[in-house]
């Protein structure tokens, strides 16, 4: 029974992991940049939803769209100022530019809002939906639904709009895309904005069942990378599936293992996936990126 319950919870939480990771994999697929600050954009989304609730009484799920858009705008600005100059730089500069960004964002939030936990109370926060043999938390269910809608919209955007196709073309072959008249720098701006905007949106929808604090981004960091690597770097569909898988693995492993070991399984899967992907991770990127 506990296993069944853990499985359901894992799936619901995994939906949100999937959404955050889709943002990360999009940025990676289009720009070849691993954004070490993705978790901090999630944190900003949470705080935006928190203040929307405090100041205007908005429900986090309603505020999530606005939070996503604001984080999108911030992402475009960050791309212009910090990412664009280092897009061709060696990995050292790329890694530490986004690591620096994550340090700046989390500490700026700590200075502005303090290190306390910021949570909101919603009418559905404590409601649970009875199922045969288990029960679902309504806030998990709603967060999952929002994540599923956002992921579906992104999927439609990438497959059915010219802009989305142009973005995929840039991911597949930058030079060929340029020859077709696509401006890659505009695509980078858009991809980075979208990637972090999704994290901001996800931050807002999980606020009803968790709390916002400046360092929360670091909680999600390795889970996101695990999902992205498992799903195939740069693959949106892969990240969606892998997000659900990791949610379930994490949730189910708490049934069998001590609480301290909760994330150990996830990290071990991560290292194993990194190392054992056949043909090496890099080749896999080229094949799967479409």
């Amino acid at each position, binding site marked *: 029974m506990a296993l069944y319950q853990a499985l359901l919870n894992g799936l619901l939480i995994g939906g949100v992991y999937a959404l955050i990771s889709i943002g990360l994999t999009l940025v990676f697929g289009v720009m070849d940049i*691993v954004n070490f600050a993705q978790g901090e954009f999630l944190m900003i989304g949470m705080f935006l939803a928190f203040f929307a609730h405090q100041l205007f009484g908005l429900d986090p799920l309603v505020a999530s769209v606005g939070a996503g858009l604001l984080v999108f705008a911030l992402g475009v600005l960050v791309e212009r100022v*910090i990412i664009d*100059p*280092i897009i061709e*730089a*060696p*990995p*050292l*500069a*790329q*890694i*530490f*530019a986004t*690591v*620096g*960004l*994550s*340090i*700046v964002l989390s*500490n*700026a939030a*700590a*200075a502005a809002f*303090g290190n306390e936990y910021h949570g909101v109370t919603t009418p559905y926060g404590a409601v649970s939906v009875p199922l045969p043999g288990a029960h679902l938390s309504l806030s998990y269910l709603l967060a999952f639904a929002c994540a599923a809608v956002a992921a579906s919209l992104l999927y439609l955007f990438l497959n059915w709009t010219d802009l989305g196709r142009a973005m995929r073309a840039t991911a597949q072959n930058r030079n060929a895309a340029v020859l077709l008249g696509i401006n890659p720098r505009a695509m980078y701006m858009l991809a980075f904005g979208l990637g972090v905007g999704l994290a901001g949106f996800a931050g807002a929808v999980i606020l009803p069942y968790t709390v916002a604090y*400046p360092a929360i981004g*670091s909680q999600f*960091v*390795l889970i996101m*990378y*695990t999902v992205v*690597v498992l799903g195939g770097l740069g693959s949106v569909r892969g990240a969606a599936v892998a997000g659900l898988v990791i949610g379930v693995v994490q949730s189910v492993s708490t049934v069998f293992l*001590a609480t*301290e*070991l909760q*994330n*150990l399984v996830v*990290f*071990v899967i*991560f*290292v194993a996936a*990194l*190392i054992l992907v056949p043909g*090496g*991770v*890099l080749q896999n990127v080229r094949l799967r990126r479409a």
Partner: protein
Amino acid sequence: MSDSVAPSLSVPSRRGRRGAEVALALALLALLLAAPFYVGTEFALRIATLCCLFGTMSLGWNLLGGYANQISLGHAVFFAVGAYTTGLLEIDLHVTPWLGIPAGMGLAVLVGIGIGIPTFRLAGHYFALGTLALLQIGDILFTYYRQFTGGTLGLTLPILGYRPEMFSFKYPIWYFYVAAGMMVGALLASRLVLRSGLGYRLRAIKENPLAAQLAGIDLLRTKLTALAISAAVVAAGGGFYLQFIQFIDPDSAFSFQTSINMALFAIIGGVNSWWGPALGAMLLVPLSEYTSLQLTGRLAPLGPLAYGLLLILVILLRPRGLAEWLLRLWERLWRSPA
């Protein structure tokens, strides 16, 4: 830019530059070693000691991260191995840290090889991600196996009084000189590696791994050698840290911050330079210690915030680091009358 105008000029200037580099590094080292004569307080001496400690670790990180561009975000693992080996040997078996620190270095070399063989299959960002995950795994395991490591309670060294043979000194100045000796050793290692065949191979890997392989360089072996030296240097730092601070727990041992600091000092000082990482530590450790003293409560995050901003600014504006910039200044100073 100006030194590459004519090839005939650039050869002697390069030799001159090497001399200038040694002179500059020695001047800075002298400034640091003389610290006890001009710092008045015990707090300042403590900062000077920490400068040497973090300088050592940053130099160690740079052997792999800077010279070969293999960015490890998990080097705190070696720091932890050094600290825990020294501590457990002293507490459980009463082994003197003078032997415990070398033991920790040796163990770190083994751990490094064990980590390196699988993870060196990964390139660029993936290597960074893999090493980051190892750091988290280490933290979880050391917290969980508490009967062995003390768990979250950590290790606290016994107070021994004046027992120099057990690494327990009467005056703080002795810790400073031991740390300074350690950093001089790391500087020598850093310069030797840079000027050796290993250094050339590492730079070849940094420029173009495929071309390096075609030129007959054994990539795995070269990287493992650098990792082994790097791990040993960082582990020495970990062992010293435990003796100096007297306490370690999994969160401080496997801290992402420690990993980042090693890289940060190297990047700000200059990753292509054999003394740049030490320069970075000499500038940033005092900055961070003083700001954490001055800024408390709500203002405390401003210190790390400034750190992060500085990191981004150096990457965007001075990607070659401050050592290179100082050298340019130095050259301009000497040449300007001509």
